[in-house]
């Protein structure tokens, strides 16, 4: 979810919205009776709560500006968290970079355990877990004869993509998730929103870690 008070511009937007609502309440109250103003206030508060609930379910899509690298290398941005160590993802990276000069950036969002931790930026534990997974992934990618750079990203994968594109002009993006029945990212529509936001080829890789584990073979 995009923090609704991330900047002064966001706060100003709230002044305008609340000011417009207040004008409507004042006009209705002065033209009729205070009870109608109270009813309109309750209705607007309910509407606001509904909008807040809807926006809490995911970042609203918006277009991102994309820049290009220009050095001839193919730049691959990989977004993955728990599945960052999955064999299917490593194989996809290998296929995507085969036979061409490539630069790979693997971004692992630091997923917090709760919404309270997310809002309080209590991300230390999430970052440590993400860092451990990322290092394992980078080792595995190196083992395949490739090298990659790794970063810990924002806990919102779409924000992490936006942040990463700011410093890494990717040519394409690979998003790795669990299978649909277990993927919170797919439930939140992360891949769909990324496709709406970013004008780049996006490949969605499904990694079934339980099927890949040695015990299941």
């Amino acid at each position, binding site marked *: 979810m995009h*923090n609704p008070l991330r900047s002064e*511009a966001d706060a100003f937007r709230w002044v305008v919205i609340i000011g417009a609502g207040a004008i409507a309440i004042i006009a209705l*109250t002065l033209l009729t009776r205070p009870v109608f103003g109270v009813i309109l206030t309750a209705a607007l508060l309910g509407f606001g709560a509904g909008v807040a609930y809807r926006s809490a379910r995911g970042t609203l899509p918006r277009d991102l500006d994309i820049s290009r690298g220009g050095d001839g290398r193919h730049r691959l941005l990989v977004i993955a968290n728990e599945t960052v160590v999955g064999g299917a993802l490593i194989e996809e990276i290998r296929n995507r970079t085969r036979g061409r000069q490539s630069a790979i950036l693997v971004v692992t969002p630091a997923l917090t355990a709760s919404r309270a931790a997310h809002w309080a*930026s209590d991300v230390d534990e999430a970052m440590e877990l993400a860092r451990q997974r*990322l290092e394992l992934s980078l080792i595995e990618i190196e083992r395949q004869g*490739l090298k990659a750079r790794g970063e810990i990203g924002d806990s919102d994968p779409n*924000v992490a993509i936006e942040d990463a594109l700011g410093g890494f002009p990717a040519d394409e993006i690979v998003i790795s998730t669990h299978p649909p029945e277990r993927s919170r990212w797919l439930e939140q529509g992360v891949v769909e929103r990324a496709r709406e936001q970013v004008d780049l080829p996006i490949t969605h890789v499904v990694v079934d870690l339980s099927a890949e584990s040695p015990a299941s073979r």
Partner: protein
Amino acid sequence: MESATVAVGHADEHHHGPPEAHDSSRIDRQTLGILLFIVSEIMLFGAFFAAYFFLRVVVDPPTWPPEPFELPVAIAGMNTAILVSSSFTMHYALEAIRKGNHAGLKLGLVVTWLLGATFLFIQINEYVNIGFSARDYGFGSIFYGLTGLHGAHVFVGLALLTFATIRAFRGHFGPAAKDHLGVEVPGIYWHFVDVMWIIVYVSVYIL
């Protein structure tokens, strides 16, 4: 053949001292600080509003405001317009510095300060002429409590704006986000003060 950029994860192997603070891309520390402060302020205002609505709904006097109190709705409305206008000038100041327009930043901050000071002056004038004091029944107490609490916040906001304006005239701010946090943070606080007044005005004077 594939080439690659440098792998990270061990970049600070030779780093001494405490680890560097992590800056989440979601929000910087200064902005998070003012947001947490605003959350505590909302709780403070919430306590005063709880007292206000207790008096109004639970005690339930036959008329509101109760006899013999009268509130200057029109003057307070004009004052509301002045304060809300100051949010627009504050936003103008921030937009100006984001574009590197230092003159616009200074103009926006000065006008915002003047509008805020005007609001405070009119409110004090309202207190002088309103005809009742904080000692006159529960209504007088809660009226002065709520509007006075807000007035104190306007005063704090003006103090912050004073620092920001002085720094603006000394050329401390730049277009990059990290270079004008000294305006951004007071700006967020100022908008909060405006929103709280809109709520106070609608609750106390209108409904």
